């Protein structure tokens, strides 16, 4: 994934991915089902977006078992935090330049 001309990261073009990053920016760890509830998306949809973010190493995964049921938690990596902040600055700049 590349950064487009205006400084916006391609990874954040999707609403779901932007939502995931926003939620992870203010929470240490969030599990899959909570993310699903927050974003109101289907399992498959969310899983594919999470995989995409994992692939570019913007988020990390932590797998554990609660009552023998698998529980997957996600967190933001340092790289992801930087990319998200850069994206916010780029958005800010674009809005300012339009005015």
């Amino acid at each position: 994934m590349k950064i487009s001309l205006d400084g916006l990261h391609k990874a954040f073009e999707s609403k779901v991915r932007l939502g995931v990053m926003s939620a992870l920016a203010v929470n240490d760890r969030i599990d899959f089902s909570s993310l699903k509830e927050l974003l109101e998306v289907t399992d498959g949809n969310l899983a594919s977006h999470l995989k995409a973010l994992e692939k570019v190493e913007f988020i990390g995964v932590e797998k554990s078992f609660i009552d023998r049921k698998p529980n997957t938690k996600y967190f933001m990596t340092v790289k992801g935090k930087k990319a998200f902040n850069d994206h916010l600055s780029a958005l800010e700049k674009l809005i300012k330049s339009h005015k």
Partner: protein
Amino acid sequence: MKKEQDYIRDIAEIRSMMERSSKFLSLSGWAGIMAGIYALLGAYIAFTFLNFRPEELFYSTSGPSPFNLTKVILLAVTILIMALGTAVFLSYKRASKRNEKLWNPTAKQLLASMMVPLVVGGILILLMILKGLIGLVVPFSLLFYGLALFNASRYTYQEVKILGLTEIILGLISSWFVEYGLLFWALGFGVVHIIYGIHMNYKYKK
């Protein structure tokens, strides 16, 4: 190429997601107002009908007491349950109106952050009652309730922090003026809650 509107919408969405995922915003101002009314009613009943006038720090639990301590404690517990029940019911209604679930991760974080001060305070107050130190019940309940709110304000409206600080200050003052315990109780749990509730209703009414 995206338009300016899209960027503004993106930012609005980011902000809303950050807030929704980290703050519990289903608490209604009415919960505060109702809790305040229950507390004032309780203080009135305790004063008029149960003859509760804690004017000293120490009361012997075995000797004759000027008031029925068991009934006063029962009354206090009833008020607590009524206030909590109303808060949960109103939050539930508000959450379902906004298509959110009440028992979400932020609600859990909010409760968890209140738990430690509340449980410690509750045990301490119970020990004080057993030791006959009735005069300390009001100051300690205000203090620990205030600490719990102050702690929990991270996960909800910022006004809760001011509410918590107010209760802490009232708790400290009432530790000195033990003889005015019931008055401070009515002030801290009654009047302060009602003012807070009216302010929240006015500010966040939609």
